[in-house]
């Protein structure tokens, strides 16, 4: 069991590690590990495109409320489809070195780098595991298919709003 002074020090240190406190810091850390950015809330209503779309839809005979709803739905759908395109066109690159390396052939290099036989074995096991993971992901087409598949739910959510917004009462 830790001593009381150690516990106090741990508590004090933990209070220092509570993440960013400023608005800018929080905004920056919210983009950590960003993949497609679709979970980030976007304020369409302050954009110029939204205002122009809304006024055009109002001219078409939609009420102000409906025009706002349709404009938001359209912009939301476009955002999802743009993220879909980005995901499709830039899949995670294939690590060819890792995929093609021969772990058996690399053993002499590991032995040169490490003196302990256990360490060499661990290193070989680590690389073999990495290689298996890399090979399981497949080629570029498999990768982009898997990545796009993750966006299905966003697409479903975005498009389901549109007919509801347009449907006449």
């Amino acid at each position: 069991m830790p001593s009381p002074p150690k516990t106090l020090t741990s508590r004090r240190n933990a209070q220092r590690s509570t993440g960013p406190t400023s608005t800018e810091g929080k905004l920056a850390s919210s983009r950590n590990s960003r993949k497609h950015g679709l979970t980030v809330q976007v304020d369409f209503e302050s954009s110029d495109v939204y205002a122009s779309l809304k006024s055009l839809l109002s001219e078409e005979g939609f009420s102000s409320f409906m025009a706002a709803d349709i404009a938001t739905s359209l912009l939301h759908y476009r955002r999802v489809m743009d993220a879909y395109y980005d995901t499709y066109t830039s899949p995670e690159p294939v690590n060819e070195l890792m995929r093609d390396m021969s772990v058996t052939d690399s053993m002499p290099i590991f032995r040169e780098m490490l003196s302990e036989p256990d360490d060499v074995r661990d290193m070989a096991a680590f690389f073999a595991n990495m290689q298996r993971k890399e090979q399981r992901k497949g080629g570029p087409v498999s990768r982009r298919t898997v990545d796009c598949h993750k966006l299905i739910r966003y697409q479903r959510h975005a498009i389901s709003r549109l007919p509801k917004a347009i449907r006449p009462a």
Partner: protein
Amino acid sequence: MFILKDSVKSIATLLPSPRLLPDESEAEFQSSVQGLLSELDKPSPLNVALVTQLNECLWWIKRHTVDKELLLHESMAKILCRADTYRDVYDNHLVSAALEGFFAGNASKKDEQWVNDLLKEAKLTVSDLRARGFKDAAKHIKMADELIHRQYQTMRHLQKSIDAVDFKSRLIKRMDLELTTFENNALAIDAKSS
């Protein structure tokens, strides 16, 4: 060809337009949009925007359909590479590209010979390879099928939206006509009474 008025184009130009892959033609995409629009009677700006999105779905279906075949090639290339003992051919991209040409019937003689050698090395026939490749790629092909299915669902939603816009404009037109009829009737009554 169906030509759009500038006012009708407006929403479509305001929305970020669907992006195409580097090897795809913008003109072909636009002509496909025009083809769909020609089936609508006096499309409104919102209709144009919706039809553009619908056309994008059609293009995604095409892309994912091509991907299904490419997934199969990737998987077959992996099987051939696994069976091959030469280090210099241990590259799925090259084998995949060679297989693509081989199955399309436009492979170079060198590629054809190479694929035949690899098949011999792996002790497989083309149909065996295809069957095994399909088995290995089944998970990814299923995913591609689900992506295609999603596009069909999206198209259904867009179609519903287009119908709703169309219905709304027809409703307004009908109300206008009814209003004109009432006005004419009222004028007729006024004229009779005077």
